[in-house]
């Protein structure tokens, strides 16, 4: 189709709309115009609750580390749990910032990216879960000490603990590589798509795919 033909079609369409399209004032006036964007508000409330929970957890962990500062194993376990709590807290704060930046009067690509990044929040927790794998013992040590006043470390053989720490430290490098792969940019890799799909819902997956489309559109 040539440009002139396209213009002819469009001109005909415009003429048709000019003649036949009208505004239904009665319907327009009946809309509750002050209805707020409920969905965005709900997500915002959820994220604020997350911030409060993680902030309280961070305070608790900070206090736990301070109390047990002289017992190295408890302090280290506390620090590890604290770091994860802070990452989750930062993620939730980032989400609230994103939500507040969503203004539909801004350029489409920018807003779509922000919306889809909000929709992919679940991936952060999947990554944190994987990253916790080599140091899951930190949660157990802190939990058993705080809840049951049992110091598990005291009951463990030092040789076993050292071996365990070494093996798990070695796991960290492949794990970081693995987690770096788990982004929307690598969705074309089959195992990445399958892994992400296994742990997150359809909504998050669709958001990740759309982030990919947005990136392609921008380039």
């Amino acid at each position: 189709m040539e440009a002139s033909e396209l213009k002819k079609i469009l001109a005909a369409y415009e003429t048709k709309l000019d003649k036949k399209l009208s505004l239904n004032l009665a319907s327009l006036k009946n809309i509750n115009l002050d209805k707020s964007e409920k969905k965005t508000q709900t997500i915002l409330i959820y994220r604020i609750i997350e911030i409060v929970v993680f902030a309280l957890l961070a305070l608790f962990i900070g206090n736990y580390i301070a109390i047990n500062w002289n017992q190295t194993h408890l302090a280290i376990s506390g620090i590890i749990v604290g770091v994860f709590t802070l990452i989750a807290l930062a993620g939730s704060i980032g989400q609230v910032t994103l939500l507040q930046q969503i203004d539909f009067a801004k350029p489409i690509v920018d807003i779509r990216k922000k919306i889809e990044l909000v929709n992919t929040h679940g991936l952060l927790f999947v990554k944190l879960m994987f990253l916790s794998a080599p140091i899951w013992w930190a949660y157990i040590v802190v939990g058993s000490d705080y809840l049951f006043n049992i110091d598990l470390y005291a009951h463990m053989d030092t040789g076993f603990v050292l071996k365990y720490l070494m093996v798990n430290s070695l796991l960290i490098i492949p794990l970081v590589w693995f987690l770096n792969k788990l982004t929307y940019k690598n969705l074309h890799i089959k195992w990445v798509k399958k892994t992400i799909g296994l742990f997150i819902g359809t909504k998050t997956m669709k958001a990740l795919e759309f982030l990919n489309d947005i990136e392609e559109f921008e380039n």
Partner: protein
Amino acid sequence: MEANKKERFIKTIDYHKKIIYKIVNSYCPNREHRKDLEQEIIIQLWNSFDNYNKKYKYSTWMYRIALNVAISFYRKEKKRSVKNDFYNEASIFNIVDENEENKTELDYHLKLLQKFINNLNELNKALMLLYLDEKNYEEIAKILGITKTNVATKISRIKLELKKEFQNI
């Protein structure tokens, strides 16, 4: 004051009704759901009306909001039910003879063009709508948030596809 604002708002909507109509038609193939999308766009436009930035044209502002709402609407998973009972059969935008069978060749081509647009992905659809509305590349770039060069490249690609599509008939 509020009545005055509402009056200005209705005038703006009326003046630019074609923008909303075209976007709704392109992003919502299901007629039953069009009323919902029209309503969502109108509410969002109203909520943003006070923050309208005079630096941009009304049409630019309207395109950004309407397209953003339409893309969100399009991407929602749930099948929606028509919940606006006050509408009954009435839509905000009425078009006479919408169901009339197209008789001219031009109408047939128009239908094909609409089908072509409907098959594009969300972002290319926005690009095509802006192009067909004769927005210049700079304005399209401002609405979409991509570079002018990128706009030009994408439009020429889509035009090629369009050419192919129409060659097949």
